């Protein structure tokens, strides 16, 4: 048990004085994030909340290595990332991060199973038997056994989002980033999706960071990070129930 505890406290992500500005050098230069400090461990199941325009999306892009900071640095699995070139950032992203977006974002030309395997396909080419087994397993875990051959447009919104979650987990990422993952799902489906996050967090030791507007959802997380005007104004742990 001590091994797991140790793994659980292992650092996944650390922000050190992270800053992001837009329109650098122009009269309209604007700093959106003002030197953020934050650490996420494997066991963390956190939500990121804040009003519109507080910089949540910008931060999420930085965390997902889709964008690079202006100053400070972001350590992912202990590796400094600010100066990585696109190639290496892409590789690190593929290996360490799973994404779940608000609008499911599946590739319509591929089946549910292929969509789940996509992160493996784009990095490793032809799927191995093990990848296929894992993808089927994940689809089963999100309750979509038997839907492998369906195209995204043949699935409901909730089903699509569950496929997207399975896809985010296929690479066994250290960090799962979810941007309003339940934004356009009904309450019941949304609760189911959260349940899945919770389970994967516990079973795979994958840190989860959910960006949400919904206070009810952030309440079920273990930790709530509040971002206002580009600064972290609070970072609270909830007692687990």
């Amino acid at each position, binding site marked *: 048990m001590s091994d797991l505890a140790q793994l659980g406290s292992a650092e996944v992500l650390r922000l050190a004085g992270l800053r992001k500005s837009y329109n650098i050098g122009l009269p309209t230069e604007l700093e959106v994030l003002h030197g953020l400090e934050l650490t996420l461990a494997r066991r963390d199941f956190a939500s990121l909340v804040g009003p519109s325009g507080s910089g949540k999306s910008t931060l999420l892009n930085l965390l997902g290595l889709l964008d690079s900071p202006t100053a400070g640095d972001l350590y992912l699995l202990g590796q400094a990332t600010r100066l990585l070139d696109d190639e290496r950032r*892409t*590789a690190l*992203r*593929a290996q360490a991060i799973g994404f779940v*977006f608000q609008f499911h974002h599946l590739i319509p*030309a591929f089946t549910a199973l292929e969509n789940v395997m996509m992160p493996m396909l*784009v990095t490793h*080419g032809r799927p191995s038997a093990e990848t296929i087994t894992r993808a089927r397993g994940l689809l089963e875990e999100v309750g979509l056994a038997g839907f492998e051959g369906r195209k995204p447009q043949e699935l409901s919104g909730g089903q699509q989002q569950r496929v997207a979650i399975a896809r985010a987990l296929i690479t066994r990422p250290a960090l799962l980033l979810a941007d309003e993952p339940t934004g356009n799902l009904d309450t019941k489906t949304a609760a189911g999706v959260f349940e899945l996050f919770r389970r994967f967090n516990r079973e795979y030791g994958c840190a989860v960071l959910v960006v949400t507007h919904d206070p009810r959802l952030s309440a079920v997380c273990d930790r709530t990070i509040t971002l206002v005007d580009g600064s972290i104004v609070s970072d609270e742990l909830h007692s687990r129930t």
Partner: protein
Amino acid sequence: MWIESTIALRFLREGRAQTTLILIGIAVGVSVIVFIVALIRGLQGNIVERTLGTQAHIKVEAPDEINRLAPLPAGTTRLVLETRRAQRLRSINNWQQVMAVLDGFPGVRAVSPVISGPAFARRGNAVESVALVGMDPIRYQRIIPLSEDIVAGQLKVGAGDAVIGRLLADDLGLKVGDKFRLAAGLGREAQLNIAGIFELGVRELDQRYVYLDLKQTQSLLDLPGGVTVIDITVEDIFTAQDAARRIAALTGLKAESWLDTNAQLVNALRSQSMSTAMISFFVAVSVAFGIASVLSISVVQRTREIGILRAMGTRQQQMLKVFLVQGAVLGLTGSAIGAFAGYGLVWVFNTFGPKLFYIPVAPTLVPLAMAIATLTGTVAAAVPARRAARLDPVVAIRHV
């Protein structure tokens, strides 16, 4: 490369209407190119074949005789009034050695020594001016397949036998086995037996040519042991000019290729080839623009998918390839259909057309057209592919 091709093919299959339309566009373009190239090649081949059916590719003759001026002492000025020399009929010096050299000349297929000069053919009171052609039938046949054009008798020269053109035979009322007289001036005359009558289909030749063997012609023209022309055919007819230049430089003789003697025809053929090339080029350009515009639209339509793929670890290079492959596949598929259609057009022309000539389709034409179309497709895809690769994933994902 597997995943890039898979994504590319899925994208093409998903955008079925777009893909079909552009494929039709490419196919039409390629079929036009295949048809017009085959048509012009067939036409030109036909014209060249007809022209070269009755003449050598290169004629080697003795150089013109010119006046030579004695060298002047330094500081002297000279005023020259020159009467240019009449070019008498004369033999090529050492033609046996020259022929031996030409026989081994690279690119030369056949060499035939010929002695030719003017004479009168007479029967009774009828007189016709003719051109004597003394030749060695075995060698000459390799230049002009005369036996194919014999309409009566046989190709037999020497020992008092001659072969004459059909129009000349008509003019003199001669048939095979008849006799006639040849007078080459200065009392040199001979009586000959008609062994065969030919018809080359060229009025000038059918009316004037009288074929004899070398020996008889040499004595008639008073050039014992001499030949006036060496006829040559080469492997590649369009290198004749170059070969002629090299032969002239090597032997010091006058060498003229069919390209020089048929300058007008060659000019017409060149212009035709150039206009074909231009039509092909512009059709290819418009096909390329078609592919580029369809893929550009596709990049815009798929911006969000590109963003997702990038977020999931697709590298820029891979994204680039996805669109390059689409261009290549469009080019390849479209050109395959187009080549097939082009073949169809050629077949229709050959079967139902005016039937003035037959269009052969070179076996290399279709693979060449397809290779060029595939390359064109890939190049045309370069601009949209670069745009796809350079899309900022952050922006792309939020694209609606």
